[in-house]
């Protein structure tokens, strides 16, 4: 006899609703056959038969909400029968059905907030259904990333393609030619659409002044005051950053790294990769992951009366979108090679721009990298995303004269990195050691092999 359990699909998921049983008791099934369709408010999933046999003892009916890992049915082998007390309708199997409740998290981590897989309030769900909106794309501002009525209204007001970068083909082409993310360009066209002229203006401005990435979905035009609803993702980011600034005593350390070594590795990797795109970010993630592994306090979380040193090194990489900042996560970054990392980063940032991120893409970061190098930023400070304890602000690679071993000036590529660390957990020495390791890894990547 094999138990069929309610599987856990998501990081924070505790229960699922049985939408539909695909089988009835007595049905013969093959391993892998669909037994039931279940849902976690947003996504429908299928529960498959863990092995072949006969379905027996369905423990729940359609519409029941079942905690994850609970047995929902059994698969019998030939000759087996189900014990009486496990049969459907027996006293043991009557269950109290829990209502759906938002998770009682005090405040969500940014990766959870931006997850498209938050729950919906009933009124939000009804409104979304009435308006025919894709709920997976509505960003929630309620507790636990819950989508509220205001979120649905905001989404609807933004038009059905909320979250997608609106740009004309001509604007996209020019941005491509200028090696520029079109999402960073403020659009002045209808509904904030980026037009060719916007890209041109942006390129001209960029060469003189520094632009902060466009986060607001709409821009003020013609001197008139326009209101931008302070809801949804924007509001969640605000709450999180306020919490960070108010509750985390952060220390900041910065270092200029000579990146000739890593650039040379980058060249080699690109030569090795053929058609595949290898970004410098991939090497940066690799080096950070390596340094985190050597400095576990930077890869930890603060509990009530303990500090958890986390076993996995999951590096979040901030990506600027028109609707805000999103931080896809490279899981187990320390265990992956540069080619794999590069591919994963390419995929995840493409999905971010297409608004096709999955819950798993956004969950579980243990450390974050924020890179504004593409804007020519010299140095900046990043705020920590709780419950993480560190964030690395990476600035532009610039050529600078530095003395060589004999004291003569040589022109090298340099890069500023500023670490913000939660001083409740991380001491200055630990932070300094981490940064120092990081610089060593970038300057002499072969160190990482030792």
């Amino acid at each position, binding site marked *: 006899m094999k138990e069929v359990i309610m599987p856990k699909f998501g990081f924070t998921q505790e229960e699922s609703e049985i939408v539909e049983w695909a089988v009835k008791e007595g049905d013969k099934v093959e391993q892998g056959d669909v037994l039931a369709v279940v849902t976690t408010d947003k996504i429908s999933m299928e529960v498959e038969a863990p092995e072949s046999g006969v379905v027996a003892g369905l423990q729940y009916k359609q519409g029941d909400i079942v905690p994850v890992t609970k047995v929902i049915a059994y698969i019998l082998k030939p000759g087996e029968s189900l014990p009486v007390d496990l049969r459907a309708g027996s006293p043991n199997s009557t269950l109290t059905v829990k209502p759906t409740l938002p998770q009682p998290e005090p405040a969500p981590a940014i990766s959870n907030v931006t997850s498209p897989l938050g729950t919906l309030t009933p009124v939000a769900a009804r409104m979304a259904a009435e308006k025919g909106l894709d709920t997976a794309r509505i960003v929630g501002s309620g507790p636990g990333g819950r989508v509220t009525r205001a979120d649905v209204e905001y989404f609807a007001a933004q038009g059905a393609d909320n979250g997608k970068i609106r740009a004309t083909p001509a604007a996209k*082409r020019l941005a491509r030619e200028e090696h520029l993310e079109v999402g960073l360009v403020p659009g002045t066209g209808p509904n904030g659409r980026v037009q060719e002229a916007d890209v041109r203006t942006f390129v001209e401005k960029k060469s003189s002044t520094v632009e902060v990435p466009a986060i607001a979905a709409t821009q003020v035009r013609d001197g008139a005051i326009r209101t931008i609803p302070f809801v949804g993702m924007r509001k969640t980011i605000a709450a999180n950053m306020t919490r960070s600034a108010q509750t985390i005593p952060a220390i900041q350390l910065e270092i200029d790294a000579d990146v000739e070594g890593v650039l040379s590795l980058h060249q080699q990797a690109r030569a090795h990769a053929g058609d595949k795109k290898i970004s410098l970010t991939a090497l940066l993630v690799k080096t950070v992951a390596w340094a985190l592994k050597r400095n576990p306090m930077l890869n930890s979380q603060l509990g009530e009366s303990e500090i958890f040193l986390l076993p996995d090194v999951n590096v979040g990489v901030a990506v600027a979108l028109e609707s805000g900042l999103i931080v896809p996560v490279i899981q187990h970054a320390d265990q992956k090679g540069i080619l794999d990392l590069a591919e994963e980063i390419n995929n995840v940032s493409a999905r971010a721009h297409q608004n096709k991120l999955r819950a798993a893409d956004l969950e579980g970061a243990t450390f974050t990298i924020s890179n504004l190098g593409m804007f020519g930023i010299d140095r900046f400070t990043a705020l920590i995303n709780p419950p993480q304890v560190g964030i690395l602000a990476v600035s532009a690679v610039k050529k600078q004269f530095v003395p060589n071993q004999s004291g003569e000036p040589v022109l090298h590529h340099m890069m500023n990195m500023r670490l913000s660390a939660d001083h409740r957990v991380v001491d200055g020495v630990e932070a300094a050691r981490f940064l120092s390791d990081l610089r060593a890894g970038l300057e002499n990547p072969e160190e990482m092999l030792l």
Partner: protein
Amino acid sequence: MRELTYAEALREAMRMAMEKDPSVFVIGEDIGVYGGAFGVTAGLIDQFGPERIIDTPISEAGIAGACVGAAVTGMRPIGEMQFSDFVVLAMEQLTLQAAKMRFMFGGKATVPMIMRLAGGSGTGAAAQHSGSLEAWFVNIPGLKVVIPSSPQDAKGLLLASLYDDNPVIFVEHKLLYKVRGPVPEEWYTIPLGQSHTVREGKHLTVVATSVEVMRAQQAADALAKEGIELEIIDPRTLRPLDIDPIVRSVKKTGKLLIVHEAVKMGGFGGEVAAQIAESEAFDYLDAPIRRLAGLDMPIPYNRNLEYHAVPQVENIVEESRKLVEGAY
């Protein structure tokens, strides 16, 4: 250069062809002593007689079939549908016979015929006599579809159509018949499948056909005073369509407006829009492609309603301005 009306240019083309080539004849309703419902064939019967300017009973299928049968046996007939709408009664001959005969016979027959359609609204002829049906024929492989917008094009395209070895649907516009323009006196042809850039400009590409070319030019004059420059392209032949000049133009202007009198839904404008979206011009589009076309309705009788049922100069002005100013 000497000026002729569109109708006179057509008549001159037919006269020149018939003088030169005994295989050419014209067949249709009331084209003889009556001179055609719009006077296009006026006087030809005096010169060529009833054997070559053939008045027919009210038998549109017969007219079309007569053209098919004569064409496949060595003649070059020119049929006339008195009102383009009546072509509905001849569709079987045009689409199932003329268009397919060469292909069905393994490329061993030619059907060099022209069917002239007097199309378009604006004369109070109401719902059954004002149709713009060119898109129907564009959907039929084996046919060519020609739609001249000026007297000069009318003559040159008619002569080219006559010496094309395929059946040609020649779509005229009733409002254009009296429009005057320069027409060379000599024999000349304008090759089928060659778009014509009627006017150059840098802000917006306007693809227009038939009477809308004239309206687009008037709109362009008005907009020029505001500093908005339209580039107007007349495809002249809808099948085969010469898309390249339109592609080049859209790459230059980044914006495209298509104007035709025929109904928008399923209209030829959709084809132009699709071909541009499929082309290398896509990456140069800086606004959505827009179409101005006939409303989704039969042509009304009332003068004012009729006027508003199809794109007029002011509609083109307004739509062009909006496109150029980034309203879409």
